[in-house]
């Protein structure tokens, strides 16, 4: 199985890197933001917030290209908005998609996580009390 793992640079990226070490996949490809600040990813997007939707929409062609070129079967993200965009691109191209909400969201799922709920194959929370019919709890990183 080939996985495309996506996270914005910072806390989401830290969680993604830890998560990646747990996954049993034949190939992992990383996508991130802030190309100038690190070299850990194969592809980069411009960072944006979910409240600036147009900046995401503008990058959709790029996101679609990344999914195609990576040959991934599954797109997985720990956040934030750029991860949601990549998940959407994966969904459009018929790939499986998994959202892992940040451990920081202990009271309520993030806005991006709630948006992912409309199309993602699976939405995961790291807090059992936030699990429900559309959001699942399988465990946590911390």
């Amino acid at each position, binding site marked *: 199985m080939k996985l495309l793992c996506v996270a914005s640079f910072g806390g989401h990226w830290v969680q993604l890197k830890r998560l990646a070490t747990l996954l049993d996949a034949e190939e992992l490809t990383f996508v991130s933001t802030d190309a100038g600040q690190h070299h850990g990813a194969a592809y980069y997007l411009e960072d944006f917030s979910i409240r600036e939707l147009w900046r995401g929409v503008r990058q959709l062609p790029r996101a679609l290209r990344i999914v195609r070129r990576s040959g991934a079967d599954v797109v997985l993200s720990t956040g934030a908005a750029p991860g949601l965009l990549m998940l959407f691109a994966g969904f459009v191209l018929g790939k499986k998609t*998994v959202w892992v909400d940040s451990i920081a969201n202990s009271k309520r799922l993030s806005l991006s996580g709630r948006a992912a709920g409309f199309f993602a194959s699976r939405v995961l929370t790291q807090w059992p009390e936030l699990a429900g019919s559309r959001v699942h709890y*399988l465990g*946590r990183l911390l």
Partner: protein
Amino acid sequence: MKVMFTAGTQFAFPRMAEVVQGVARLQPEWALVFQAGPGATLETFTEFSNVQAAELFTADRFQEFFDAADLVVTHAGMGNIIACLEHGKPCMLLPRQARLGEHRNDHQIDTARAITQRYPVPVFNDTASLAAAVLAPANWPVGLKDAPSQMVTARAEFTKGLNQLLQVL
């Protein structure tokens, strides 16, 4: 005592700098290290011979200081928090607040709240109470020694769940 203070790698954090100065003044014997963040005003630290301050340390230097520290005082950045928990390092958090212009939003407050629910990591909202806590080693957080093994257990369960999920999707 060796105490490491860190404001992360993105921006300066004047409130953290205040705490470092307060502790440096009252505990001249302690060895303090402060990663102050890009754009920080470091001139104020020249009067303290017991403080090594820099905007950013190299990764190797940072690791050296981190390993030697008896206590790490950090902004609520996920990278530093996870590092402390993985190494069982006693730590205290001062989350950045958006209303003080310390970050774009209040996600550090959410992060700190989430962490403190699962691990004995104290969170402070103001510099006076943080400085007082740092100055009282007898009351520093204990119990972080178990954090690494707790985390291994948590991740083992998550690994199992995730890999099963990837098979059945």
